[in-house]
């Protein structure tokens, strides 16, 4: 249907986006690859030169590295599990016949609009602070010792804060998906004597599968780069207890000022993210109708 000239026009219209994104991707990436093979420390500017794979070896052999990988996986996996499981349950609850569903949706979605440093700072100071936090007051009310959340359980606390930010997103999407489900099907199943659990297992869950996959895709994109929450609360500590791979690279670059090593870490992070991306894209591509 389209002619030669509209084809050319279409290409011309797409070109700026593609070229800009390509440059945005390839220039910093090429520079990172280059730096990753160089000796490059901001604190010793006179020394330069090629160091082969030394930066990579340092990164891979650093005891922090494996902790950071495990922490990253725990953070992403933990938040995904918490938000999807609770999201499904809360969405089903809100989807019941209730009064004030509209205002309730607004309450539930609110944390999603709180910027990460604010969310982290609210939780750190107003809730998890061992002297003045509300949770400490609750502990004291029960006669318990206040818990040092961010010192004793830093990663769990960050998973908790991040889950609070993303639970609304998962809930809202799952709720929207639930509302497009035909109630006749569910009623028919109920009439035929299907238990609440089998209605959930064989009707609701399959209907939600597409929404759940999309929630996992979008959240993974954002969770792999989690930064503000850690920066505001624990700064990766105590020690390396809450250092993720992105935060470890950040520390190498801007605190240790070792550009070479940070770049090697960046390339490792890019490779790992690509593995995840290929995997996810394959699983999800068929769910997006492009």
């Amino acid at each position: 249907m389209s002619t030669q000239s509209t084809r050319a026009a279409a290409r011309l219209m797409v070109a700026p986006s593609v070229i800009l994104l390509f440059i945005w991707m390839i220039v910093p990436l090429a520079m990172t690859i280059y730096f990753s093979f160089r000796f490059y420390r901001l604190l010793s500017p006179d020394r330069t030169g090629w160091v082969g794979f030394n930066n990579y070896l340092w990164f891979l052999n650093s005891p922090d590295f494996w902790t950071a990988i495990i922490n990253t996986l725990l953070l992403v996996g933990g938040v995904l599990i918490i938000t999807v499981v609770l999201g499904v349950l809360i969405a089903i609850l809100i989807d019941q016949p209730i009064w004030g569903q509209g205002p309730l949706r607004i309450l539930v979605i609110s944390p999603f609009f709180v910027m990460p440093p604010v969310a982290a700072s609210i939780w750190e100071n107003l809730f998890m602070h061992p002297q003045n936090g509300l949770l400490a007051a609750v502990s004291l009310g029960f006669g318990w010792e206040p818990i040092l959340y961010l010192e004793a359980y830093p990663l769990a606390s960050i998973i908790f804060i991040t889950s609070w930010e993303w639970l609304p997103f998962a809930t809202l999407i799952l709720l929207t998906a639930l509302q497009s489900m035909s109630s006749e099907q569910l009623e028919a199943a109920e009439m035929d004597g299907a238990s609440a659990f089998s209605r959930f297992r064989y009707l609701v869950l399959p209907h939600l599968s597409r929404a759940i996959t999309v929630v996992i895709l979008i959240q993974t994109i954002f969770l792999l780069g989690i930064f503000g929450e850690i920066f505001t609360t624990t700064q990766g500590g105590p020690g390396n207890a809450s250092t993720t791979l992105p935060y470890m690279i950040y520390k190498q670059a801007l605190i240790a000022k070792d550009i070479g090593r940070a770049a090697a870490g960046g390339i490792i992070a890019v490779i790992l993210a690509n593995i995840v991306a290929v995997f996810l894209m394959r699983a999800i591509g068929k769910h997006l109708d492009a």
Partner: protein
Amino acid sequence: MARTVTTRRKIAYTAAAWAVGLIIFFPVLWTILTSLKTEASAVASPPEFLGADWTLQNYADVWARSDYPRFFWNSVVISVGSTLLGLAIAIPAAWSMAFAPGKRTKDLLMWMLSTKMMPAVGVLIPMYLLFQRTGLFDTRTGLILALMLMNLPIIVWMLYTYFKEIPGEILEAARMDGASLKNEILYVLTPMAIPGIASTMLLNIILAWNEAFWTITLTTVNAAPLSAFIASFSAPQGLFYAKLSAASTMAIAPILIVGWFSQKQLVRGLTFGAVK
């Protein structure tokens, strides 16, 4: 009989759902309440609810003593600027992908989305150096560019899913009636595309407003938006709880209100049309 049971069930469900909703919302509510207390009242133990000393002084203090207005203005300029620039670049792309798709359109869209998967820290150093050398470091222009590029894939995707729903037949009908290309765009397509463009704009302003990686790493003083302001407000040691809460409330209130209005579009926008 059946009717009373239904009403009773409805009451139970309503109570349970609202309880869950209030728990989720409570940290935001508590922040707003704390911002309205005096500093002494804010850290009182046990916590004060209704008997607190209420005041608006914290807002006046934060406004007067910190550079809050500058941070706020930076946030506005950066989030709105990057969104408008992104729209200007993405609209033609999404338009042609939706109305004149080629064999590669889907691959191209998937590739765009996959660039979002690349961890920002992976390219932090080059960005940092490029920004330093080009004089873009700590400027609003620099952040507008960075955030525009960061959100461009999402803008293209969202617009694409909206544009695809505009029926192609309407264009053919307009052409049959002898509409020129200019009139076709001005009077037929634009009115149908505006709702989609508006929701894309709102959602991307929210995303850009809440962005906290490039805004923290690529600024120091001049261009720092609210994310950097709040991140720097660390360890108040209990002395400035009420002011911290007031500053937090001021940082999130504008976007919370925008968000409430756009929550319906949020779902279809951020799921790229897969969930409506």
